[in-house]
């Protein structure tokens, strides 16, 4: 067995452990349930925004990218963001089957946004700014995906507003919100097998 020093950052083990896989699945299912609930509730919230300024409705779409950010922050292994977001998409589709396989595709794309940010930080940066950036990147990916698939005929102004709102929403709801959720989880002590559960609260 290794005798390494006792800080959170010992050997950078990027291989997925069994507990990583199981807990990632649990988080994925939980996020999927949240997505499903939001699927039913979002319309009356986003409609007034759309009236105020076409494109602004994506200001509340950040909920749909929170899975990737939380998954990445907890598991901290390559592919965590994509896997959790994809699982969440599968669960939310399986329950409601509203948009079917397209939801899976958007799950992968959105997770990829967060994943690229975590990769850019070489899977070592996990503080609040990184989380916000990952959320923003997910929002950007979501906006791009939606504009191509669902709003292909929209004008440039709509596309701009939609994208900016999605980025902000992702940064705030998924990035900062996701970071807070992970911190709260860490305080309950369920994450002791993860680095996220062993850090001091300031990070």
């Amino acid at each position: 067995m290794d005798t390494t020093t006792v800080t959170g950052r010992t050997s950078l083990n990027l291989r997925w452990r069994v507990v990583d896989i199981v807990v990632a699945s649990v988080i994925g299912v939980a996020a999927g349930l949240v997505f499903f609930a939001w699927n039913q509730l979002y319309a009356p919230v986003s409609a007034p925004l759309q009236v105020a300024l076409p494109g602004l409705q994506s200001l509340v779409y950040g909920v749909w990218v929170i899975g990737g950010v939380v998954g990445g922050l907890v598991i901290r292994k390559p592919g965590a963001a994509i896997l959790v977001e994809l699982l969440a998409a599968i669960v939310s589709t399986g329950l409601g089957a509203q948009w079917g396989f397209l939801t899976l595709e958007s799950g992968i794309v959105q997770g990829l946004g967060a994943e690229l940010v975590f990769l850019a930080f070489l899977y070592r940066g996990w503080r609040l700014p990184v989380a916000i950036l990952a959320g923003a990147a997910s929002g950007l990916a979501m906006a791009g995906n939606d504009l191509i698939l669902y709003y292909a005929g929209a004008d440039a102004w709509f596309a701009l507003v939609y994208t900016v709102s999605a980025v902000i929403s992702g940064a705030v709801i998924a990035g900062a919100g996701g970071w807070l959720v992970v911190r709260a989880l860490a305080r309950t002590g369920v994450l002791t097998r993860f680095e996220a559960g062993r850090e001091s609260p300031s990070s």
Partner: protein
Amino acid sequence: MSPVDVRASGWGWRHAGRSRWTVRDLDVHIPAGQKVLLLGASGSGKSTFLAALAGVLGGGEEGESTGSLLVGGGPAASARGTVGLLLQDPESQIILARVGDDVAFGCENLGVPRDETWRRVRQCLRDVGLDIPLDYPSASLSGGQKQRLALAGVLAMRPGMILLDEPTANLDPTGVLEVRDAVARVVEQTGATLIVVEHRVGVWRDLVDRVVVLDEVGGGILADGVPDAVFAKDGTRLAEAGVWVPGLEPWLAPPRRAAGHVVLAAEGLTIGRGPNSPIASGITASVRQASALVASGDNGSGKTTLALTVGGLIRPLAGTVLAPRLARGLCAEPIRWRSRELASRIGNVFQNSEHQFIAATVEHELAIGLPKTRADGQRARRLLLETAERLALSHLLTANPFTLSGGEQRRLAVATVLVRQPPLLVLDEPTFGQDRRTWVELVRLLIERLDAGTAIVAASHDSEFVAALEAELLVMDGSAMGVR
């Protein structure tokens, strides 16, 4: 597989992020085929030691170790598959939905060919005494059956050593005996090395050859030898550390006060979870001030449902639950009271303590519902601190409730209702997972409540608990889940 031995030399382990070593300076040799009972106070590292032997303690990123730990001559970390580990919670050890698949899981992981796998599955189920079809849903088994299923799954790997980490803590008496007998049978057949960690020594005493006691304070080993010798020499010290030493049963002053008026009465009660699934019927019982009523019976007989019904949390399917003396102006049925009214009249404690935690710290958890006005508030706060002190929770006041150990969580759940001093307590398995020390303190507190006039209804299969409270007994005779 032939039995393996264990050789620890100066072995220690510290979890990542902690300053204290969980296990230190452990030097012990357990020859192949020996049967050992491992004891020690909470926190002495027993579970950590077993986890290390099974190779599931995690790698360098989860902590550091010193010294060496060898299983069958090789390092413990690569022992997966040669060592079988049975844990405390039956629910968390069921991996697949069907019984046969769950037992076959270990064989699949070891690369055993298909035909051989299923042959082993059938044999192991027979060995543990589970005579059920292979496609039976594993979730429908009772606690004792689930533990035996997990044991069958471990056996199918043909391990050279079997480790049991408090396997009967969550089981009723029938389940305890089932598991013990299955283990005895298996060990006799295979000759595998056996290490058991368990508070309730009486169950395992006749099966083991040797007792090893870990030292929580100084590291290393406190006592080591034949059971009779160890208990004779260190019995008192072990009892004080929380071990249920046979022959040293705790003595408690019995309740002094005579029973008063009827506080809650159930009449012709039929209980169940949904309208189409009754669990038990024909229940007529009552509980009086300063007295206790205990519902006893195996898991699955409806004790929890009864506690929930009597506690005013779920509706009875037929019959009535009336508490006119508690009502104080409200209607007599607790189920119709609002949540705030219910909490000040009936204190409910659930079987799974984790379901009850709301606040972020132990102190806030205890303070929920206490009066906030100045005069009352001060008195309530004194009571809060005193209760925490009695139940050994004072040093945990700033901790998050989820970080507490199982026994501490249960004590916290009981403390949260005791601080509000309701006239009726409804407790579901209050003594689960308590070692001798905390059991004594808990029961002593409850007897004090009885003397102060509180009525207690409990669901429990702990016969010493029933005797200590001099409780009236309600026997739940429900049939088990259809399969033996």
